[in-house]
């Protein structure tokens, strides 16, 4: 049941990504186009996404546990050098490749070859991180997805 819910949420998110065009690899270029023309619709889409989520959370503030069991994934507290350095690398890569992981997964569903290359590289980057930072061992605990 919990997996079915996750599947449906994935489909809903993907549908929203496609409908709004927010998965498009030119998103960043849209924000600051080559002609200097700002395209505000990308920001508009994100604003719309944000307000709906905030609204739903405001209505369910009392909820301490997920309906289908398990625990809420917490938002980490306090900035750290890791989150800043990682964020800069992430943004750098996003700007260069044009994709971020969620967008690439949607584009992969449209059989975009670049998305497959990008996602393979993302996984390699994650493995490289684990090899370098964790000295070979995969991370055992405390993995909190926040992106």
């Amino acid at each position, binding site marked *: 049941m919990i997996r079915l819910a996750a599947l449906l949420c994935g489909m809903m998110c993907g*549908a929203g990504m496609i409908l709004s065009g927010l998965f498009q690899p030119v998103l960043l270029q849209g924000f600051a186009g*080559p002609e200097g023309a700002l395209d505000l619709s990308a920001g508009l889409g994100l604003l*719309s996404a944000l307000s709906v989520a905030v609204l739903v959370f405001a209505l369910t503030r009392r909820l301490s546990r*997920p309906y289908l069991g398990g625990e809420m994934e917490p938002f980490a507290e306090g900035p750290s050098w890791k989150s800043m350095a990682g964020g800069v690398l992430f943004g750098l890569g996003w700007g260069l490749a044009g994709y971020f992981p969620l967008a690439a997964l949607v584009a992969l569903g449209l059989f975009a070859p670049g998305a497959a290359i990008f996602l393979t590289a993302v996984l390699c980057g994650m493995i490289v991180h684990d090899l370098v930072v964790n000295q070979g061992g995969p991370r055992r605990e405390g*993995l909190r997805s*926040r992106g």
Partner: protein
Amino acid sequence: MVLGTFGQVILGGALIGLAFAALMILTGRLMSASGMLGSLLGGREGLAATSIAFVAGLFISPSVLIALGSVRPPAVEAGWPLLVVGGLLVGFGARLANAGVLGSIYGAAQRSRRAVAAILAILAGAAVSFVLRQVLGAGGAA
């Protein structure tokens, strides 16, 4: 114009927000492709199953939409060297920061200072890469 019309962008954004809220309320998971791909590589027990399900949902959503109507194909993608280098940086950075685009945005909505900082860092990196691409002559096609 590669993005949708005004209404499509608003509606699409609302769907994304609804999916985020539903995922958190029903399953407790943060809607974050970076984190979910990460949890496939090893993480806390029990996260992999929902991650696989969510990623599968993302993957099949275009096919469902194609069956229902028209879908704009991805616009021009970057050349493969940029995709590889960019992907490596994104993967490494996401794992280091435990953060990505959407997760940070929603974290900021929950007043997480760390998420706000991560957004600023991501935008700074994106700005650098934008300048870099202008200098390199917009290498790749996108």
